């Protein structure tokens, strides 16, 4: 049976719209719940005092440093690898295997990365349970995502730009540096923003590598272990009896705000590059 085009158009519009609503409803609901219950607890004292005084300041510092450290590691490594794969690598079996491996890496459960980090960074490299171990573990976990999104962004830069640049006598690296990379930057940064959000909330990879149940002082260096927001949230909500609900929601809201703040930097950088890209 053939439905007339007008009807099928309306039908598909309705279905697409309803599916979108279904997709965003849980997110909106979670946001609403966290904000409603978290805001009353979001006091200066809660944010800036130590754990023994009922605050979450050490966890904020811990999450912030781990996320920033891992982005500093993963961003250049991921982008350079993506440049190699997209701009230099010949299309042979090895390259295809590397690409396949990268895609598969993204499918590994995060707890496996945690155990990997424990055995390699914490024990083998003797870095101990520390910020740097956690950051490295998160970097390895996030590397496939950054490489894949960066490669897509590089690939989306029209080939004619590369051709024009090479024909003007630019070397391949000059072409990458002055033409391809600036034009791919907004896309690369979008991938980075998503990665920041993901690694900020991850618990499993830092469970064995960086996070501590309770540390009475702030970290002195990147070789100290720290408290982190997601782990703190997990511990206080499951292991510690009689914790007020508002403290939990306050912690969750703080985590949300930190993710948004770090992402904001990437978003500002993306705006900057978009403005310079005029197409």
């Amino acid at each position: 049976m053939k439905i007339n085009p007008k009807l099928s158009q309306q039908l598909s519009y309705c279905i697409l719209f309803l599916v979108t609503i279904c997709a965003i409803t849980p997110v909106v609901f979670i946001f609403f719940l966290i904000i409603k219950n978290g805001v009353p607890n979001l006091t200066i004292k809660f944010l800036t005092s130590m754990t023994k005084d009922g605050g979450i300041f050490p966890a904020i510092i811990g999450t912030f440093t781990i996320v920033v450290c891992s982005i500093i590691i993963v961003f250049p490594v991921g982008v350079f690898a993506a440049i190699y794969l997209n701009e230099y690598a010949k299309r042979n079996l090895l390259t295809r295997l590397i690409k396949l491996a990268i895609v598969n890496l993204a499918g590994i459960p995060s707890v496996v990365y945690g155990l990997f980090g424990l055995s390699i960074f914490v024990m083998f490299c003797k870095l101990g349970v520390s910020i740097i171990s956690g950051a490295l573990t998160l970097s390895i976990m996030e590397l496939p995502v950054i490489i894949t999104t960066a490669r897509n962004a590089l690939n989306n830069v029209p080939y004619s730009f590369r051709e024009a640049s090479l024909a003007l006598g630019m070397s391949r690296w000059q072409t990458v540096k002055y033409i391809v990379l600036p034009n791919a930057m907004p896309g690369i940064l979008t991938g980075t923003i998503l990665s920041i959000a993901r690694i900020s909330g991850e618990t499993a990879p830092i469970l064995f590598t960086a996070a501590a149940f309770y540390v009475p002082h702030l970290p002195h260096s990147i070789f100290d272990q720290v408290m982190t927001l997601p782990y703190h949230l997990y511990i206080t909500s499951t292991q510690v009896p009689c914790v007020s609900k508002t403290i939990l929601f306050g912690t969750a809201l703080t985590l949300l705000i930190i993710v948004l703040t770090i992402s904001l930097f990437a978003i500002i950088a993306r705006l900057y590059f978009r403005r310079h890209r005029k197409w």
Partner: protein
Amino acid sequence: MSQIIAKNFNLYYNNFHALKDINVTINEHMITAMIGPSGCGKSSFLRAINRINDTIEGVTTTGQINVLGQDIYNKKVNINALRRNVGMVFQRPNPFPISIYENVAFGLRVNRILTKKNMIDIIVEKSLRDVLLWKDLKDKLKKSALNLTLEQQQRLCIARVLAVEPHIILLDESCSSLDPVAVQRIEELMLKLKDQYTIVMVTHNMQQAARISHDTIFMLSGNLVEFNTTKNIFSKPIKRETQDYISGKYG
């Protein structure tokens, strides 16, 4: 004097033999047109002259092409310097997504040929004057090059090439995306430029070849069938295939 000399030049895309034993001598300060049906190898040959074919995987060559007295397929050749000497304008206008000024200055800046702002300003103005864009665009140099019309974009691409002061300019069907009026104006520009530059153009438009070129190369299935002055090619071609092509029997 001759500037481009091909000797027994062959080009393969993997196993596909795209150019077969090309021998030709292209003269300087003239417009030489390459004509032939689609897939005859005219673009491949043009793109061999600045070695932009190298960017495609699986391309191999044998034989020689001498440009300005140098075998460009010699391992010691500096490809980047070669490409500055042999500029190329592509089929579709492809200005960079940056300002008009930066487009023209790009080659100078990146290669640090010039670093002083006022020197670059002079070259940018000169290049834009040469392609007759200066009058229209001199107050909009900071604007994006992508807001220009197609014709202006193609002129800008020519200016971008002129700025690095090449000796030879290759045009790969550079008028095919333009409207007839724009084509005519670009042709006038080319006639003006040929006094200073050697111009080699690929075109699918025989009338265009007849109008503006001095010499014409006719190619078919990877072979260079006939090379002669444009007048002779169009009035008394020697080869049967040339005759058939220009009379419109195929292509």
